[in-house]
């Protein structure tokens, strides 16, 4: 098949029934201000780490809410916790705590140990 330049790509549908949203629930319980996020991307544009690599808090928030934890857990560790995103957030989301809580959630559950 490869010889013809085709390949089978992984399915990209988001299955909310099978995705594990426990991490998202843990984060939202601890930091309800995440619900105010309008996904404007201000955090991603000011990010210190984002200056060096493809790291985006906006993307992380979306992945977290969808429950796509596999992609999330390694991405999270690129954050330097400098707090610039919290200062620029127009909705007052306490982004730094969102990341800390998400790290905590993964640390707590053995399945998603960072």
């Amino acid at each position, binding site marked *: 098949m490869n010889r013809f330049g085709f390949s089978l790509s992984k399915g990209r549908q988001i299955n909310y029934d099978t995705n594990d949203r426990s991490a998202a629930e843990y984060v939202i319980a601890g*930091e309800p*201000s995440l619900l105010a996020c309008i996904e404007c991307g201000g955090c991603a544009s*000011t990010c*210190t*780490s984002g*200056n*060096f*690599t493809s790291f985006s808090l906006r993307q992380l928030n979306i992945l977290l809410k969808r429950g796509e934890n596999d992609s999330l857990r390694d991405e999270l*560790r*690129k954050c*330097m*916790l*400098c*707090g*610039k995103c*919290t*200062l*620029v*957030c*127009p909705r*007052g*989301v*306490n982004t*730094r*705590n969102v990341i*800390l809580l998400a790290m*905590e959630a993964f*640390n707590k559950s053995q399945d998603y140990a*960072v």
Partner: protein
Amino acid sequence: MQFDPFIIPFNIGLYFILGYVVLRSLRWFMELSRPDKLRLQRGFFGRAFGQSLREIFMESLLHRSIFKANFRLGYMHMSLAFGWFLLIFFGTIEADIFGEKHLNAPYKAIFFKFFNPEHGRSGFEAAYSFLMDLILAFILTGLLLAIVKRFFSPVVGMKKTTKHTATDRIALTALWLIFPSRLIAESLTSGAYGTGSFLTGSLGNVLADFLPAGRMAYPFWWLYSIALGTFFIMLPVTRYMHIPTELFLIFMRNSGIRTGDRQGTYSEVETFSCSSCGICIDACQLNFAAGVTDIQGAYLLKNLRNGADTSRIAANCLMCGRCDSKCPVGIELSPIRMIRRRSGDAQWSYRNLYNGYLRNRQSLPQVKKELKPSFGFLRKDDPDQADVVYFAGCMTHLTPSISRAMINILEASGLSYSFLDKGGGVCCGRPLMLAGKDHEAREVINHNSGLIWKSGAKILVTSCPICFKVFRESYHLDAEVLHHSQFIKRLVDTGKIKMNFLRKKVVYHSPCDLGRGSGIYSEPKELLAHISRLEPGSFEDDNSLCCGGSLANAVIGSKGRKKIASDMAGKLTAMHPDILATACPLCKKTISNATGVRVADIAELAAEALVRKTVPGFVQAQSVSSDAPDAVSGVNSANPGNLSRVCPVN
């Protein structure tokens, strides 16, 4: 041999606590690290010994620090501690002189009146009784204050008093019963025999008029003994453990032992030295500005003593250090909090009563396991070579007017400099440390250290006190680390740049990490006094407030931050200054969201005051580029027009 069964509870309690304190001290000494043991030995046989004795007298007995902070609270603590000490001291002498023989068992002094009811009729004996009554009255006034304080704390000038657990309440009740029961027992005995001085004698006479004083005294002597015994036995599991522990702490501190960054004997001794006086609670801005009332130092230590989970308390703190600077016992609360943060939400494993007395120190959580590297994406670029390296820091990139001002000053100084993180650098690592992630922070620190070493810098200037603190404490650099306020001050002193005088009334806000965190108070104020009319504020130096923006607290969120910022901005602008000056980009950003007064960094003011030199290659810029982050925050921070006079032409 004078004996009566009622002394048994007292004797049990006394010998228990004496034995316990000796055992506990020995155990603490054994668990010290070897260098700390040597320090303590050297301190014990050196100058530190006299210093410690003096401190024990001034602090543990007279409570001088509490007096300085709050007179009525100081009186309360002093009357109980010093008064009790005097009562024991003079009581022992009394038993020695007037008792049946010399060198008595301790109970003879405590229950002297019971065994010598005829004592104190006339002459020297009466004078001595008067002294003993005076001491008892002194203690009782303090006790009265303590009881009123428990139910109505503003009496001693405290907004809040500490909350108690059930064990604390039992010990507290026992403590409260000790002196009134002594008063009544002595009075009744005196009344029956017609002895006693102005307090016990008069009260005894009144009581003896309508009560069978002789028979009624006995139960009160029992009560007195039981109260003392209960108090001594409860002591190790309550806050009253601070009475013996503080002596040990003073010796250790004067010998040069510090908290450090690991759980150890010293931090445990500190934990038990807290008397829960509540001064840290009143000092805490989270308490009086944001209404968070259960996370202060006294509660952190109380939960540590009780073996409760402290992860939530440890995380919810601005780390401004106000409590550290105010603690009358000198407990280093912030380092203890950092130890808890590093160990994450690991639980302490003892909660039963046996472990309360003899805890198994081996089961304490150690530093969390180390993780694999996470910042592999950082590029290893070669920085420009220069004598002076300027590191703006993340927060300064959000307030570009500060870095622009610094570049103007650096250009005007004519020094060879490079702007290390011009294109947006790597974080300094302190925010990671504050979150308890030392391993990750070390990666970032190594990266930055490499860059700074390669640049060949002799001086590293930073605009951000957060970076400044970590550069000084956790980096191993060849370069001298200066905050920009120090650097500008030095440029002015050496005549590299000259300053005009700004006709503005300025109040200076000392940032936590620069002031209390790094001890830099004088340079920023001297620089401001040089270029403007610096007004003294009511929150100076050690007493300066936190802006609320601190990265150390991830829990409070934007509403809590706003409350703290509004509160502190209101206090600092009470004298209506033209400019509220600070030396931290994060403070600037946080405060300017909370006040209408212009908030400016010291570097901006210095750049404004800079005497313009005609430098070849530089022309006056026409327009001021907009200060984007300030525009986002919705505050028009009156960007000075002359700031860009010496901007290089791009």
